[in-house]
């Protein structure tokens, strides 16, 4: 296939779509499926067939539409009308939807499940990466191509040198979406220039942060976008082999990626001589097997090579010496999700979003004690208040906002005082948190901060690989002290010991997991120290969470 054929393919698909008077899009990503989307989709298909509407109405299985807690979600696109979104759709509503939109009947009972499209949840978002999510059928290449998919790759191959591609990425100002925010352009240039016969491109989809599911959604909802981004990267850095490392918990994402790879290979969009150019690029999927540390790039490479996912000291950096000793470009799945848009619409357009130092948009998984939970894509620089109170619709049950947790176990809690700080890499770091992969958990007054810190420390303790001493032993000891605090048998001396340990583990651990594991303690201590002291001195939990089962015991050891 060449560029002209790609255009033709898109046109055929568009013509096909226009034949339908009414297109009913059903979200078929994991949360909606869990809420019963499969039955809804099947009921719609049956109803279309039963009503002999096959020629006019189409039911499409798409990816995520955003407000996951309101699933199953269905969007109806009717010619000449505004799109309508329905929430909490059940199978028995299938016929009603058809009646209303295909047969133009009046169905007032449907009104109660209409999700208004003008609410801030939708209007405040800017969708670049998720532009096709919830619109295209992730299991059909044509669906993506019809939306302009793979044209960026075609243009890059035809019109740009690899160096120009790297430069365009640099100019866009995009920074790694995995958390640390390393400028992607720099990395691409580095890998491109690194000497090495075989180079590799790796998409990091080992989204281990609890509470984050941007990568899963992207892989499930728009797998071709990730593949296209990787192929462009492969061309730019001179790699012929790519790997998508998919977290083991995401079988559906892996399945859809696998299908997408096969489709793309068949159409000559991956494999040898892509789009009739001399560029060859293969992508393989590697499944994780349940290890958070494999999100760390050196551990991830070990895992791709089939070994224990234990990090190795850097330097050498993967960009110089990665998989099998070859220069390796590792970017987050979400970063790759941005690439086609940057190449397709230009770095300048992309850089018009975001702040001076952080360009573009960021996807957040909004969850916790907030009315609208789900997946949102917002320009970097938006305030936390806008996210929580406008997009998120505030805290349910008239409770007070206490803190927002970003960055998972490597991040921190941002208290109410900083609701108006624009969210970007630097400001979050100043507040003692990190952008992370994009989990954003809202906590209300019923969350106890030492307990939150303990929760994350338990996570880090379980996920420590055991290679370096400070992380292996330090996380256990920090968790023990936090347990003493929430159990009511800690002293102020323990708190001092905890702070010393935090600093030591942060500064001496081998990899990012250990180095950032004290962050949840740091940030909660910074903003909620009084809460810790109340636990220790008064055996009082202001949030009413801790029950102090070992109150007054002077040691960790229960008397028999």
């Amino acid at each position: 296939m060449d560029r002209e054929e790609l255009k033709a393919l898109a046109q055929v698909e568009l013509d096909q779509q226009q034949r339908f008077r009414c297109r009913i899009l059903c979200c078929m990503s994991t949360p909606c499926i869990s809420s019963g989307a499969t039955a809804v989709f099947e009921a719609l298909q049956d109803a279309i067939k039963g009503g002999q509407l096959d020629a006019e109405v189409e039911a499409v299985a798409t990816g995520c539409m955003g407000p996951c807690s309101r699933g199953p979600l269905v969007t109806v696109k009717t010619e000449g009308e505004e799109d309508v979104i329905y929430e909490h759709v059940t199978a028995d509503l299938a016929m009603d939807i058809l009646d209303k939109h295909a047969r133009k009947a009046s169905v007032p009972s449907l009104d109660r499940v209409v999700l208004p499209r003008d609410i801030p949840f939708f209007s405040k978002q800017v969708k670049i990466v998720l532009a096709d999510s919830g619109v295209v059928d992730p299991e059909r290449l044509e669906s993506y191509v019809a939306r302009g998919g793979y044209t960026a790759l075609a243009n890059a191959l035809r019109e740009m040198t690899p160096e120009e591609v790297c430069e365009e990425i640099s100019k866009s100002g995009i920074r790694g979406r995995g958390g640390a925010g390393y400028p992607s352009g720099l990395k691409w240039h580095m890998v491109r220039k690194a000497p090495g016969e075989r180079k590799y491109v790796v998409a990091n989809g080992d989204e281990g942060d609890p509470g984050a599911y941007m990568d899963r959604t992207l892989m499930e909802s728009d797998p071709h976008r990730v593949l296209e981004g990787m192929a462009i990267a492969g061309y730019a850095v001179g790699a012929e082999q790519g790997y998508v490392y998919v977290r083991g918990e995401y079988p559906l994402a892996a399945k859809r990626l696998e299908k997408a790879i096969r489709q793309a290979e068949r159409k000559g969009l991956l494999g040898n001589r892509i789009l009739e150019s001399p560029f060859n690029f293969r992508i393989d999927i590697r499944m994780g097997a349940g290890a958070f540390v494999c999100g760390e790039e050196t551990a991830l490479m070990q895992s791709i090579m089939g070994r224990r996912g234990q990090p190795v000291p850097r330097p050498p950096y993967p960009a110089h010496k990665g998989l099998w000793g070859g220069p390796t470009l590792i970017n987050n799945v979400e970063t790759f999700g941005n690439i086609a848009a940057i190449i397709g619409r230009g770095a300048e357009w992309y850089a018009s979003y975001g702040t001076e130092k952080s360009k573009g948009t960021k996807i957040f998984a909004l969850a916790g004690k907030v009315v609208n939970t789900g997946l949102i894509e917002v320009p970097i620089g938006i305030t936390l208040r806008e996210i929580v109170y406008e997009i998120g619709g505030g805290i349910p049950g008239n409770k007070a906002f206490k803190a927002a947790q970003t960055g998972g176990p490597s991040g921190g809690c941002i208290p109410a005082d900083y609701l108006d700080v624009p969210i970007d890499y630097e400001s979050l770091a100043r507040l003692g948190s990190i952008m992370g992969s994009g989990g954003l958990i809202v906590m209300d007054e019923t969350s106890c901060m030492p307990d939150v810190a303990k929760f994350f420390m338990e996570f880090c303790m379980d996920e420590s690989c055991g290679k370096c001493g400070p992380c292996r032993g330090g996380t256990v000891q920090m968790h023990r002290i936090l347990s003493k605090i929430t159990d009511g048998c800690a002293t102020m001396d323990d708190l001092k010991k905890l702070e010393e340990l935090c600093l030591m583990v942060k500064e001496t651990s081998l990899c990012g997991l250990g180095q950032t594991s004290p962050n949840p303690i740091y940030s909660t201590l910074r903003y909620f120290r009084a809460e810790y002291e109340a636990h220790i001195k008064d055996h009082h939990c202001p949030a009413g969470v801790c029950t102090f089962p070992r109150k007054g015991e002077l040691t960790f050891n229960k008397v028999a």
Partner: protein
Amino acid sequence: MPVVTLTINDKLVSAQSDKTVLEAARDAGFEIPTLCHLEGLTPRGGCRLCLVEVEGVPRLLASCVTQVQEGMVVRTETERLHNYRKMMVELLLAERNHVCAVCVMNGHCELQSLAAKLGVDHVRYDYLCPDLPVDASHERNTRDPNRCILCARCIRVCDEVEGAHCLDMMGRGIHCNIITGMNQEWGKARSCTACGKCVQVCPTGALFKKGSSVAEMEKQREFLIWILDGRDKKVWHWSR
């Protein structure tokens, strides 16, 4: 091999450019504590005791895996490093049952002497007291995981020098453990050649020769360079 000049603890030092900071520092007479490092084995960078401060680098660097660079300014002994090293040793002592008094390596143990050198006269953290069975099934050697610090010297020597790869690490985090074969009794792991190299490189009493009693086990490591240089360069160092 080109030579670079760097500053270690205010002293100008020159070293071949392929050397690590640890090697350069030791050649210059500075002591940097190590536990997982052993000359002759692939560096691991796991124990973190050899961390040093390098000017202009915000992070602490493990000197065993950091190559020297022209103009590098290194500090190997600062109060911060000393405190961290102390804490690391305390964490190691707390995570297993290191009862020096009844150890075959008492008096010859690297962990014990390092603790004394660093001034660790007590451990501030809770002892974790894991329940780990001793494996005495091997005809010559015994493995006592209670005294293991997971430095993986034994794994590396078994893989890199002996070539048997009988030993490896299982589990993760605090539950890591050294295993022989399919986590089976050492005596039944037929990939073990009973060469005893793992015993000799072990820094503590986790691996020891059968029949040794308290404080009787001493280890010798000259064989490592002997074998490696003999194998690669056909040079056998009698002087060592």
